[in-house]
């Protein structure tokens, strides 16, 4: 595909990795923020190319992984109401709530539908006026404009049966939290390209300046990641701490002003719990007063919900903040596997645990073989 395949070319990847190793005079540790980037790194063996000289730690950028248990429990409770349809992106269906997941709710007869675009859910509400249609609005700033467009469209048409269960999260406050960690090991961030496609770079300037950390807005293909690493290494070598853009073909300094205006019309920054991390100040987006009638929380009394129960053995908190690599979790590949996940990072295709498992990184290989020879033969 154009604008994709060229950025996966093995020769270009190797040249860039060589350039990084030639220019890094001492070991560095970087964090890529986005789960999509984590996947590229593991799928294309970038860490191996960079050797231990340049260590990549994986950040919290998996929206599915950080969606709070309370939100999932609320979505599950909504599926039990007779006239409610819950629409969700496909990746949410197998994320465990306190008691089961959305795909199990569907098997029990709940009306759960997978949509590709938030507007599809709004259109469904327009076509089925007798049902209340709830869209499970998760995702970073990348996803919010699409949801805002659906919200505005529904409101402009006077739809009374379209609702949003909002759990949107904002990246900069999470980076601020990680950068402020007194035991921080990382020297630079590779920021999430598509978040900045929408938001631009302004919010990242104070983080770079306050914490003396280069931030390179980076794309998702192997060539992008390695060029991002090279740009970060050069800044570290020169003692600089700037916000710079590797992903020029998709990111402008100002982001996309029309998309940002759409977000601002519908949403405002709010404190938000991140699953595995806790409440992050201003770490989410909630509906503005003008759009409060779309809030799905009003459909169910919150005191009717179960007390959220997080599996104690899951170490997602450390994994999401780059303090622990997935194979270091005692449950990895043992009590926790994609077909029977303990935590969200093992479910979402972008979760770091799922990525390590999929690419057989860490000592999971022997575990898999010893537990299930058929699976190993398949792979």
């Amino acid at each position, binding site marked *: *595909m*154009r*604008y*994709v395949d*060229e950025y996966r*070319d093995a020769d*270009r990847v190797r*040249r*860039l990795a060589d*350039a990084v190793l030639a*220019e890094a005079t001492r070991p560095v540790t970087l964090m890529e923020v*986005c*789960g*999509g980037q984590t996947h590229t790194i593991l799928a294309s063996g970038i860490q191996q190319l960079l050797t231990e000289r340049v260590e990549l730690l994986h950040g919290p*950028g*998996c*929206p*599915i992984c950080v969606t709070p248990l309370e939100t999932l429990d609320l979505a599950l409770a909504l599926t039990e109401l007779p006239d409610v349809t819950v629409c969700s*992106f496909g*990746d949410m269906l197998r994320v465990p709530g306190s008691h089961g997941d959305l795909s199990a709710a569907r098997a029990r007869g709940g009306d759960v539908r997978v949509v*590709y*675009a*938030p*507007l*599809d859910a709004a259109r469904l509400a327009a076509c089925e006026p007798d049902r209340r249609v709830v869209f499970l609005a*998760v*995702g*970073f700033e*990348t*996803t919010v*404009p*699409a949801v805002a*467009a659906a919200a*505005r*469209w529904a409101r*402009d*048409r006077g739809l009374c049966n379209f609702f949003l269960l909002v759990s949107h999260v904002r990246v900069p406050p999470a980076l601020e939290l990680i950068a402020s960690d007194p035991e921080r090991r990382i020297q630079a961030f590779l920021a*999430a*390209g*598509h*978040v900045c*496609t*929408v938001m631009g770079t302004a919010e990242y300037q104070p983080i770079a300046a306050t914490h003396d950390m280069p931030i390179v807005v980076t794309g*998702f293909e192997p*060539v992008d990641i390695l*060029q991002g690493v*090279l740009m970060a290494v050069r800044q570290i070598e020169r003692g600089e701490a700037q916000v710079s853009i590797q992903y*020029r*073909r*998709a*990111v*402008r300094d100002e982001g*996309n002003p*029309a*998309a940002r205006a*759409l977000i601002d019309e519908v949403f405002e920054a709010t404190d938000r719990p991140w699953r595995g991390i806790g409440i992050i100040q201003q770490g989410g987006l909630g509906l503005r007063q003008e759009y409060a009638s779309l809030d799905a929380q009003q459909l169910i009394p919150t005191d009717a919900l179960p007390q959220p129960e997080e599996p104690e053995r899951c170490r997602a908190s450390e994994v999401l903040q780059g303090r622990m690599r997935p194979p270091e979790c005692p449950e990895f590949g043992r009590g926790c596997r994609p077909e029977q996940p303990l935590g969200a990072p093992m479910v*979402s295709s*972008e979760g770091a645990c799922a990525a390590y498992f999929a690419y057989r990184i860490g000592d999971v290989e022997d575990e898999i073989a010893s537990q299930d020879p058929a699976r190993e033969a398949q792979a």
Partner: protein
Amino acid sequence: MCLAVPGQVSEIDSREGLAEAVVDFGGVRKRVCLEGLPEARVGDWVLVHAGFALQQLDEAAAEELLGWLSDPEQPAP
């Protein structure tokens, strides 16, 4: 989840008070919301996420990076 895919606008087709386009993704055509890129025209390359066009691709920036990477004589960008 923040996956976004490049495609080429093949038709502008707004209706029901919504700016929309048909975008071609290597032969697969889909309706895409253009509320974030009202100035997009047929032939433009756009980056699409969750049925919403996030941004126009800067083709010159794309070529610049690839140009360097194809020419072993040049220093790293």
